[in-house]
């Protein structure tokens, strides 16, 4: 983990031994600790450093932890800062006081350091989800605002009135400015989707207006149409040099302007593209990823995958590969239930959450049992009440290139497919419950001894449930037949995708994911 990825934790406790103890374990777990012996020092640190989570004692001289938390929350920037109380106080009254003060969680002394670390990790992950989710909400809201906004700038009032009337009739929210000064004020409070501006205006003309906007990164990309009585070539050329989107001669009339505005809005109308771009950015900033870019290189096996996100929107399914040591590789395929237009963003964040929860289990794991890994992640997810409404299916494999042994455990997943050296298709079922449903997911390992050329396929319900125009589902058996008939010189993933595309006419109902593991010796 690079330094910039590490999260900063502020510890406030008047007991030096406790501070040092927590400090030590935070460092071991890749956090950057900051120590304060009282709330006043803590405020100084909060002012200077970017803190991701606070661990605070309750009983302190001067100002107690509850009061401190309230004060922290008064600062707008720290309203959602994850805050955990570490206290010997354990009564119900203390707990409710902690919540009232704005705390997110409470850990009682004497505390189990493992619990403290787990709660810290979980709370940070959760706040990441809500942060992104919040961005999504506000994004959605901005797109729910039905009418696209047009700013119309012209010093001629009757002209403005005519165009405003026509634009509004066409369903646009049109605001009029009668000078560039006025336009600049309006733009700051209500960013338009398209700007239509006259060129010839007193004081500041349309060209200068455009030049002003070009200098403002947030505004320079707003589509800009020049409208003018002039139709001379120089004018038009000067306009295009300024990176305008279009140029309309006034005499052409309002209808043409409306048509051009509509064309621009439609071309941008790609709201989804816009949201996806924002999503990518937001998730990049979270450093969560749901599918690796490359296939892992692991001696003795060839591993490849195919992943086609539903409608191009990442979410739902997630994949991961993780080397435990030189001889053992973990392979994970999961599916968050309920990816759909309303919740896909959340599904994405959640997939990232599970993936990182798995990673933190794996980082500490000396455990080479998929079922035990699953159970640990299940406990984390199950215990995290704020995400208790989301469930996921997961298949986990651990392959060993010394013994060529494969261990498999699953949580509510589609059975893995084993094509053995005789060419038989064997469906290997797991028995565990959906991740996060019950405290004990009842996971267990199945072990396969692989021989050279044998293959294992993992998939999610997207592939199985997708339907043809005839409404018939692709189904497990069709997949088995295809796999059975794949010839040794064919690329299995290509063959499956081709047949799947033929079947569904390339219209998918969900994320499509498939992982292929092949033993080479």
């Amino acid at each position, binding site marked *: 983990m690079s330094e910039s990825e590490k999260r900063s934790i502020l510890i406030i406790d008047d007991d030096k031994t406790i501070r040092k103890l927590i400090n030590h374990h935070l460092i071991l777990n890749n956090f950057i600790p900051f120590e304060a012996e009282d709330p006043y020092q803590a405020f100084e640190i909060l002012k200077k450093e970017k803190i991701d989570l606070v661990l605070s004692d309750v009983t302190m001289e001067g100002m107690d932890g509850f009061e401190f938390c309230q004060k922290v929350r008064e600062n707008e920037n720290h309203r959602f800062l994850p805050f955990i109380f570490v206290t010997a106080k354990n009564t119900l009254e203390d707990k409710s006081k902690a919540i009232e003060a704005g705390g997110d969680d409470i850990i009682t002394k004497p505390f189990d350091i493992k619990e403290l670390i787990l709660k810290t990790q979980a709370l940070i992950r959760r706040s990441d989800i809500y942060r992104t989710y919040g961005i999504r909400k506000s994004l959605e809201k901005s797109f729910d605002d039905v009418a696209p906004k047009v700013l119309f700038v012209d010093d001629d009032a009757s002209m403005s009135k005519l165009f405003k009337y026509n634009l509004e009739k066409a369903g646009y929210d049109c605001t009029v400015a009668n000078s560039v000064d006025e336009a600049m004020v309006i733009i700051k409070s209500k960013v338009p989707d398209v700007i239509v501006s006259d060129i010839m205006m007193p004081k500041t003309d349309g060209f200068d207006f455009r030049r002003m906007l070009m200098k403002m990164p947030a505004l320079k990309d707003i589509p800009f149409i020049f409208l003018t009585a002039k139709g001379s070539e120089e004018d038009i050329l000067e306009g295009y040099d300024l990176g305008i989107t279009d140029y309309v001669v006034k005499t052409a009339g309002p209808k043409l302007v409306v048509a051009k505005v509509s064309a621009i809005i439609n071309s941008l109308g790609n709201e989804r593209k816009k949201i996806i771009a924002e999503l990518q950015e937001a998730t990049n900033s979270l450093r969560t990823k749901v599918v690796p870019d490359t296939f892992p290189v692991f001696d003795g096996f060839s591993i490849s995958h195919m992943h086609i996100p539903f409608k191009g929107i990442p979410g739902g399914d997630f994949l991961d590969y993780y080397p435990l040591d030189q001889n053992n590789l973990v392979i994970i395929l999961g599916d968050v239930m309920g*990816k*759909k237009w309303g919740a896909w963003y959340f599904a994405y964040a959640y997939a990232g959450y599970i993936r990182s929860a798995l990673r933190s289990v794996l980082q500490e794991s000396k455990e080479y049992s998929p079922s035990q890994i699953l159970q640990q992640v299940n406990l984390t997810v199950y215990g995290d009440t704020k995400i208790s409404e989301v469930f996921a*299916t997961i298949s986990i494999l651990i392959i060993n290139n010394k013994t060529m042994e494969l261990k498999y455990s699953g949580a509510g997943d589609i059975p893995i497919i084993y094509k053995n050296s005789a060419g038989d298709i064997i469906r290997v079922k797991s028995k565990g419950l959906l991740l996060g449903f019950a405290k004990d997911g009842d996971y267990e390992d199945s072990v396969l001894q692989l021989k050279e050329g044998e293959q294992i396929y993992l998939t999610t319900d997207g592939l199985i449930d997708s339907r043809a125009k005839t409404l018939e589902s692709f189904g497990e058996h069709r997949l088995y037949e295809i796999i059975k008939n794949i010839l040794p010189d064919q690329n299995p993933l290509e063959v499956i995708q081709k047949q799947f595309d033929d079947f569904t006419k390339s219209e998918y109902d969900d994320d499509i994911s498939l992982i292929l593991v092949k033993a080479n010796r």
Partner: protein
Amino acid sequence: MEFFREETNDVVVLTVNLKRATLVEAEEFKQVLVNDIQRGFKKIVVDLSSCEFIDSTFLGSLVVSLKKLTGLGGDLRLVGFQPAVHSMFELTRMYRVFESFKSAQEAVQSFN
């Protein structure tokens, strides 16, 4: 009516009138269930006999509600598995956590 709701004493019976119960209806269905849970009902029967298919999102809304109800000491019981629905429950091992019955009447009675 996609979801038909009936109360018998303290048991709510929800009938899903959909051939294909999918993500399109899942959110609304979850809301129906949540409303009942919030109003204090702890015994809920969901009749799926009209459903030829349910997808994982719809199943998710049942699972969420079951988890909520069992946390409150209640239960959600199911009725009327058609073959594809049955295999969905089997595939996700959810048949192990949901109790299912042949008829709504049987399911209602099982609560007493």
